[in-house]
């Protein structure tokens, strides 16, 4: 029986957490986190030796454990704190002892748990690591990002089984399934297992793990390179939390006896505190993948030079679309991002630069240009440079090219794509290609026979329509094309239709038009006057950046309580193909909010803030075709 094991486990992650930014100086700010869009404040904390200890009775901690399906038991007689995770793994701390256990692994904490007022306090960072949660810094917000920490690939009797486990229940999407590879995406989890691991297993020749998405909405991709004739079964689970799939097929050619390869996280030995995003560690192998670690832009009168830092060899392939769709992209094959995906807004001649992990072994750098500009692609000692000139490219300039950096053999795509085929313009398996990147769809919530919430004769439908109209005027003035799902107080589908018919009709308007983005404007309400504030909802990973950009402007521009960005399965956001957000501007049911909603000036502020958020997210509208 061959057994390939990639086990990082809670132990190593706990060590990793020790390398992340240090313990907070004050409990009120340093112990606040966001876990799956929910802010969690740890209030029962004590600083000790520069680190933070958390009380077992901390409400935020209890909430976190509940969300993870974990249970805590305090046994005063034994001086032990036992946490049973949903998996289950037993995490065991003992008061007065630095040794603690995560499953079968014995580890050493930075300080010993202690008892205060009959409540046990345990080291926070070690605890979070043991729960498979990584602390990730996202623009000043500290996220508790669930981690996929355990991959187990076992092979026996011509059959291979892959089992993946994470801090939360795993749900896989199959994003590639052909004779050569099976790629699975796990939304909502990051991983420190990124890298390529050669495998000697029935039906599988290598395993590639990569992480895409943004810190708030990561996606871990697991790609299995299959041997000829390999087949796989359907996804399964043992306990409703892990992910399991069986494969069969021949062993990889040239393979000796089955091997065991282990990948671990960085050494737990002390290191300087560095980035809050764990470095990706790839196992050393002949097929080592190139790492893309930085992108920087430098302007001069002649144009913009964009330097992409790449360590290792990679081949590349670039494409340019014709005017008016002035976009340029370069795919680095055999490469992985070792930095977070980035979107940078520049100016002229490069409007935006985006860098993403396109698939497990391809990094895409994409530019939006202000015109059909001349672009030179220059391999360098440190990677590759894209020189974008302020002058236009000659009419006969090439629109596709290939090359290599770092000694890699250039690879030409098997099927040269049509440069005009905008389906190439995508990031990730679920990327959306707007047919009309100048178009924004605004949906005034409710309307017609559906009044939404009502207070003192004031309806949500009327307020939402007013704010949406104001938003439309601002966006049109800024050069966007805007389509309203309804321009007067009416149903979009039909009077007294079902909510689904109504919401899908609104999605259809945006989806059929290929809009750049969709924003739905609403007013909230509750059965009592207590709840108040402004909330921006999202549903899909692709919504996060838009929702967060809008929220930031709303929080800065309105005098309401900022209830943040919240994930929920709202129909209109979920079923929009493009990035979408639903804004609940304020509560009709709260007197203070109600007064604001009744103010035209305040509603104008709402429209202005949403428009500014859209601008932050999308930049300026691309030039019209006739410009």
């Amino acid at each position, binding site marked *: 029986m061959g057994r390939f094991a990639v086990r990082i486990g809670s132990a190593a992650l706990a060590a990793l957490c020790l390398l992340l930014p240090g313990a907070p100086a004050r409990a009120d700010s340093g112990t606040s986190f966001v876990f799956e869009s929910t802010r969690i404040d740890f209030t029962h904390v004590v600083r000790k030796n520069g680190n933070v200890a958390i009380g077992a009775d901390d409400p935020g901690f209890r909430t976190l454990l509940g969300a993870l399906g974990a249970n805590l038991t305090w046994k005063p007689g034994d001086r032990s704190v036992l946490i049973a995770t949903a998996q289950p793994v037993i995490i065991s701390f003992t008061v007065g002892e630095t040794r603690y256990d995560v499953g079968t692994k014995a580890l050493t904490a930075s300080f010993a748990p202690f008892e205060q007022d009959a409540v046990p306090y345990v080291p926070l960072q070690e605890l979070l690591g043991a729960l498979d949660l990584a602390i990730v810094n996202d623009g000043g917000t500290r996220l508790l990002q669930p981690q996929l920490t355990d991959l187990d690939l076992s092979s026996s009797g011509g059959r291979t089984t892959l089992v993946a486990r994470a801090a939360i229940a795993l749900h896989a999407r199959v994003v590639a399934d052909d004779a050569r590879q099976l790629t699975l995406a796990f939304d909502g989890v990051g991983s420190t297992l990124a890298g390529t691991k050669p495998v000697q297993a029935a039906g599988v020749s290598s395993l590639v793990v990569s992480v895409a998405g943004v810190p708030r909405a990561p996606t871990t991709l697991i790609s299995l390179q299959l041997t000829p004739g390999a087949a796989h079964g359907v996804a399964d689970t043992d306990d409703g939390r892990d992910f399991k799939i069986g494969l069969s097929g021949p062993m990889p050619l040239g393979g000796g006896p089955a091997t065991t390869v282990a990948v671990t996280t960085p050494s737990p030995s002390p290191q300087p505190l560095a980035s809050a995003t764990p470095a990706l560690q790839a196992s050393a192998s002949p097929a080592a993948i190139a790492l893309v670690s930085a992108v920087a832009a430098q302007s001069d009168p002649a144009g913009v030079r964009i330097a992409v830092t790449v360590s290792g060899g990679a081949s590349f392939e670039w494409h340019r679309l014709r005017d008016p769709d002035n976009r340029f992209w370069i795919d680095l094959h055999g490469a992985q991002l070792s930095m977070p995906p980035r979107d940078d807004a520049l100016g002229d001649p490069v409007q935006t630069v985006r860098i993403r992990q396109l698939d497990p072994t391809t990094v895409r750098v994409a530019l939006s240009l202000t015109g059909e500009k001349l672009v030179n692609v220059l391999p360098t000692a440190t990677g590759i440079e894209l020189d974008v000139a302020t002058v236009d490219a000659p009419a006969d300039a090439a629109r596709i090219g290939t090359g290599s950096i770092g000694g890699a053999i250039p690879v030409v795509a098997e099927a040269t794509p049509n440069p005009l085929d905008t389906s190439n313009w995508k990031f990730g398996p679920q990327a959306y290609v707007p047919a009309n990147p100048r178009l924004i769809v605004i949906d005034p919530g409710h309307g017609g026979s559906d009044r939404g919430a009502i207070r003192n004769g004031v309806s*949500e439908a009327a307020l939402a329509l007013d704010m949406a109209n104001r938003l439309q005027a601002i966006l049109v003035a800024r050069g966007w094309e805007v389509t309203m799902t309804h321009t007067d107080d009416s149903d979009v589908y039909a009077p007294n239709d079902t*909510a689904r018919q109504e919401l899908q009709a609104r999605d259809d308007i945006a989806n059929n038009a290929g809009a750049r983005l969709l924003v739905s404007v609403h007013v909230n309400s509750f059965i009592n006057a207590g709840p108040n504030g402004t909330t921006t909802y999202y549903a899909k990973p692709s919504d996060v950046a838009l929702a967060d950009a809008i929220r930031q402007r709303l929080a800065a521009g309105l005098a309401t309580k900022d209830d943040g960005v919240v994930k929920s399965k709202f129909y209109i956001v979920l079923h929009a193909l493009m990035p979408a957000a639903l804004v609940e501007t304020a509560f009709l049911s709260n007197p203070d909010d109600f007064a604001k909603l009744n103010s035209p000036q305040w509603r104008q502020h709402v429209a202005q803030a949403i428009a500014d958020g859209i601008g932050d997210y999308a930049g300026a509208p691309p030039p019209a075709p006739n410009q």
Partner: protein
Amino acid sequence: MTPRTPRRSQRVLVLVALLIVASALSWWVLSTRRSTPATGSLTVYYTKLDGTTEVPWPVSMRPRAAGESDASYVRETVKYAAVQAVAGPASDVQAIRFPPGTHVLAVDVTATTATVDLSREVEQQTGGSFGENGEFKALVYSLTSIGGIDAVQVKVVGRTLETLPGGHLALDGPLRRSDW
């Protein structure tokens, strides 16, 4: 004194053997009952009035009955948790609550998905997404805290709705914790 006959000795031996068998059976039944998982409590959740925070809330649950099948016990547990989640915590607790009168009509469990059929009153939402979001989040968190359940399909009076009337949440498929 009458000497024992061989026949009488055989009867005694059979009696002793029967006693041993009965004792063994009794021991097995009792030990089996002791080893049956006897969950005495259940974690149910409610959503705080901040609209997002789920608060775990222990409720007592009858232990598994002797001989009760796994499927039956899980279904009963799901039903109990759903009833508790829809009823909400004590009235003095500040929580997002289902519309008054909402109750559980039926539950079913297929694989790892629990289906909860709610009464018509659940459609009487306040109009905002706030309550709707908090209500269903708490229901999903409550049911998925039960081992083996990772998704919740909502029905209203026996029908699967894409959304509630005038509502926001997509109910056209099972809800999971990862939806929030």
